[in-house]
Structure formats: C-alpha cells, structure tokens
C-alpha cells in the first residue's frame, strides 16, 4: 500500500510540466470573474472585457509571473471580487472554517447518541 502511495506522489508531481502553458492559462481564466457579465468566468465569457483580461494574463505569463502574482496584480487593480477563490484572511475566516465546524459538531452529536446507547446497555 505504501508503495502505491509513493507511486501516486511521484507520478503526479513529475507530470505537471508537460503542456503546462495552455493548461495554466485556462486554469487562470477559469478562476477569474468577468466583471461586466452576470456570473461568468473569463474563460466562459465572450465579452471584450474577457478578451482584454486574457491578453493581460498571457503577457504576465510570458513575463514569467507566477499564478499567485497574476492574481495579486488583478486583485490590486479590480479588487477581490475578480478571483473565484476567496483568500485565506481574517475576513474570510468563517467562510473557510464554518463548514468544518458543522462537521465536527455533527460528529459529536452522533458520537453522543451512540455512547448513550452503550451506557443504557451497561445499566
């Protein structure tokens, strides 16, 4: 089993390089909101705004900027609204952790119900 996991690790990380340019482009397009559209990403939109942003992203990738740098650049220009992946920060703390809190809460309830049964049995 350990070997299999190692193989998975190895293959996933070694493969990323091939065909990276277009995949990276599309990944970034998909994570950007088209600000003039109603709920569409840059990848989906046919608007002029989307065309422009695509060009900007292409330029930035050619300049050798990383995904993160490109997002930061666009956020500084258009605000957080433009990226579909909300950042980890104080304002978004609840967004990222509330679902897990509910998960833990649910686990506690189920655990308590089962435990109660065990006690009943013991009595």
């Amino acid at each position, binding site marked *: 089993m350990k070997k*299999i996991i190692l193989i*998975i*690790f190895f*293959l*996933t990380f070694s*493969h990323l390089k091939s*065909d990276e340019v*277009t995949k990276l*482009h*599309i990944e970034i*397009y*998909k*994570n950007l*909101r088209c600000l003039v*559209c*109603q*709920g*569409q*990403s840059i*990848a*989906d939109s*046919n608007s*002029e705004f989307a*065309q422009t942003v*695509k060009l900007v992203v292409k330029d930035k990738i050619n300049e050798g900027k990383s995904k993160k740098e490109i997002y930061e650049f666009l956020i500084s220009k258009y*605000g*957080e*609204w*433009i*990226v*579909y*992946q*909300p*950042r980890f920060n104080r*304002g*978004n703390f*609840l*967004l*990222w952790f*509330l*679902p*897990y809190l*509910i*998960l833990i809460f*649910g*686990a506690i309830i*189920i655990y308590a*119900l*089962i435990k*109660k*049964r065990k006690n*009943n049995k013991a009595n």
Partner: protein
Amino acid sequence: MLSNTGITLVILTTLLSITVIYKSFVDLHIKNNLVNQKILNLVTFQTTFSILSFIVLIVAFVISDFSLVNVYENSHTKKPLFYKISGAWGSHEGSLLLWINILVIFSFLFLVFTKHNNKSYLLYTLIFQNFLILGFLIFLLINSNPFSKIYPIPIEGLGLNPILQDPALAIHPPLLYIGFVGSSIYFSAGIASLISNCRDKFFAKSIKPWVLISWSFQTLGITAGSIWAYYELGWGGFWFWDPVENASLMPWFVITALMHSVIVLEKRNSIYSWVIILCLLTFTISVTGTFLVRSGILNSVHTFANDPSRGLYILIFLSLMIFLALIVFFRYSKKEEYNFLLKSKETLILANNWFMFFFLTAVMIGTLYPIILEVLNNTKISVGPPFYSAVIFPFVIPFLIFMALGPKINWIKNKYKEFLSNFLILIAAIILNFLIYFLLGKYSIISNLIIISSIFLIIHSVKDLLTFFKNKTVSDISRIISHLGFGMLILFIGISHNFTTENDFNLKVGEKKKFSVYQINFNSIQMENEKNYKKIVGEFRLINLKSNFEEILYPEIRIYEQPETLTYEASIKTKLSSDIYLTMSNISRSDYYNIKFQKKPFMIWIWISAILIASGGFIRLIKIKTR
C-alpha cells in the same frame, strides 16, 4: 377577455382556500372518523379552478394575446409554438402561478391518497397547506399578477430571452418546482403531525411517497438545468457553483437526508423529531432559495426575473412561516429516547445526514457569505468553484465508502468473509483506477482517491444488482440503482474534470490552428435567416492528426430581434465516449473570431447517471403503489 377569466379563476381559488380552511376548522370539532365529503368537494373545485387558470394563461400565450402584460413582455408571434407554451412559466408571474398549482394539486392528491387515516392529522395538513396556498395567492394578486392588462394593446410582444428558448430549460422549471413545492406537503403534514399527535411510523408512511416524488423530480430538475447550462451557455461546463445553481442544490441535500431518515422512522420508530425538523427545513430552504433568486440579491448567470419588492414579500412570508413552524415545534415536541448501535442501519443513515448537512453548510455559507460580508465589511468577494472543490471534494471520498458499505450493515454475519470481499473490491477499484491513470493521463491524489471510492461504490452496487437478479430476495432495488447512479456520476465527473482537452485561441476565416493531436481549419462563414433570428454560421474542420479522424463543426452566433440579443450556439458532437464542443464568438473591431475547443470524455454518461439516480426514486414509488 382572457385576462378577466384568469383573474376570476384565481380569485375563486383564493375564496375556496379560505373556505377550505374554515370548513376544516369546523370539521375538526365534529366527532366522526372521516373527513367531511364537502371538504373533499371543495378541494376538488379549488384544484380544478387553479388548473384552469393556468390553462387560460397558456392559451393566452399560444394565441399571443398581448392585452396581457405578461404575454406582451415574454412572448412574440414569431416564436415557435413550443416556446410560446413554455413562455407561460418562463416569467416570474407565470412561474408563480405554476408554483401555486403544484401546491394545490399536491394538497388534493394528499387528501385523496391518504383517505383512511387519522382525521385531525389530515385536516390540519389541509389547513396549513391552504395557508401556504393563500399566502402565495395573495402575493400573486397584489404583486405578481400574470393576468394584468395593458392598454393600448400592443401589436407585437417583446419576446422571450433567447437563451431561455431551449427544450431542457422549458421542462426545467416544472420539474424543479414539483420538487421544491412538492416539499410543501410534508411541511404542512409535519406541523399537522405535531399538533394532532399522529406520529412515528404512521406519519412516516404517510409522507414517504411525497418525499420520494419531490426528491425524484428535483433530481431530474437539477439535471435538466445542468443540461441546459451545458448546451446553451456555451462554456462547456454544466455546473459552476453559481448562487442560483446552489439555491437548487441546497433543498436537494435536505430532501436526500429526509428520504433516508424517513426509513428509520418507518422501520424503527426512531428520530421522529429529527424527521420533523427535516420536513420543515426542506420547504423553508426551497422558499429561501426562491427568495434569493427572485430578489436579485445574487449575482448570477441564471437571474432572469428579479425585483426587490418581490424579495421583500417572500422574505416576510418566509419569516412568518419559520416563526410559526418553530412555535409549533417547541410547543408540541416531546422528548425522545434514542437507541443506537454503532453498527446499525440507523447510525449509518445518520452518517448520511451528517454528510448531507456538511455539504449543505458548505454550499450555504459559500452562497451567503459574500452577501453578508458586503453588508458588514463593504468588501466584495467571489466564492466560486475553487472554494467548493477544496472544501467539499475531500469529503466525497468517505461519503462514497459509506454509501457502499452502509446498506449492507445488517447482513454482516460472516465477518471474515465480508471483510475479504470488501478488500477484494477495494483492490479491484484501485487496479481500475490505475488503468484509467495510465491509459488516459495523470491526475492528482485527491482525484485518485475520489475515483477509487466511486469505483468501489459502483462495484458494490453492481454486485448487489446481480444478487438481486439471481434471487429476488433483496428488496431495495431502488436504493441499488440510485447508489449505482451516484457512483457513476462522481466517476464520470471525475474523469471529465481531469481529462478534458481544451484550448482557447483566435482565428480568421481561412486560417488553421494546431495543438496537441488536433488541427482546426476555419473554412468559411455564412449568414442565414431563421424564423425569429439571424445567424452567422462558421464551418470548421477538426482533424485528429493521430487517427486521421475528421469532423465538421458548425458553431453559430445568433442575433435575435425580439429582444435584440446575441447568443453563441456551441457545436456539439456527442458520442458515447466523448463530446466535442466548439464555440465561436466575434471580437469587435477585428476580423478575428475567438474559438473555444473542448473534448470532454464521457459527458453523456453524466446525464445518464443523474437520470439513473432519479429513477431509483420512481422505482421505489411504483413499488409502494403496487404493494
């Protein structure tokens, strides 16, 4: 003329609602085991009038009676007949009338099919259902009347939004509404059950068919919506975790939880209060979803009919509903004794509920958080697909494993043998996963795990299916089919997510583009006139350089006149093994066209899987009926 008839019918329905409520209260005090025949008659009339009013609206659309504002705003004489009819529920007003019709029809059917049961339970259900009907009727009459008149009568209508002119979308609202609004009946029944003290097994039996109906239809409705998004919105995806899509998914999580919990209540007489909470929650969340969509609070590609004043009314109504439900719940609920074994069906069904609530909270927080943050903090953030992938996807893995093992927990007699067979299935799933991995390409660890666990569920379900056909002793064929469908759904989504080949480039007529193993030639462009739009059709030749396979594709840009809109029609070639998806859009002030190419493996299987999930519900329903 039609306008007056329509309004009269709606008002008659309203008056009948009030009468039904009054008569039911009177009948409650009469000592008799059967519901008064008069009430049944009243409900029959109410249903007839309500259906008639909807037919009148459809007729107005079919004959293009533009003296009705609603027809004028949403139809056009040149529109094909099919879309004239579907235009009747394409607008907010029309869909509200459809909503009311479903409320009324469900109340009628519930009364007819639950005939010989506890009288006060039936009457209370009828009373609360009619309060709901009344609430929406008043909303319709004062704010969203589909029969409002316009003068002078326009000669031509404004037309329906062209991207709504699609077969999948025409059937999407009715399907989804049967799901959403159908849940009203067990909202009412839940409150009635508390008050009339008609609980447990009996209650579970009486609501089960309605839960199944609404669940199955809602599943189909969501599927139809996704199919529409895939064919019509032209980005090649079918689920964007868009707020409106989420609004349809949230009630689905609760209904799914309810559908499983109801079995526990029916078989073991346990978790009554929890089932009631789920009953109340399902309809509440359905109405909340409608509120969010209709009020225009959400920014979405799917918002077509919004107006803040509607939002306010729904919000007030919703608050009243929740308030009332809470009062009744706390006034009448009793303390229960719980009896759970770790390895029992009850516990595993609770595990299902546990995951459902996790998915529900994740989606709900993702949808509402940006709205709340904007109000509190004045920062606008977007919560999109990356958030949901990060939060939800990892938990799909244990969820699938539970789905495979859960239903069998009772049959475990030979522990060693059971363990061995599970282990073998797991090994088989891992081997199949690596076959996909090496044949199609590499993907991330989490995708590996999701695909392994979905194959694990599929093998388990297929094994159950075979046992079912061998000896018909296994009774839960419906469960097997739905679970099989779910396993397949996740598998094919996983595959299409990881192995879509896509590209995005700009071309002029006559140019060609090479990438990976493909070459695309932009051959020509043509203008054509259709009945209610003009179109620019591009001709593209797609060549697979490796296999020398060729395909001609014709994506379109459509220019609709009423209302003037540009839409982009993808050219889609569907095969069992994959879809080829090509869209073309014009770039202003240039001869270039933006081309998006996608090859998506096993797309059609995603729809097949989703339909399989829903069909499980229908099969169970037929079985209940024939028993």
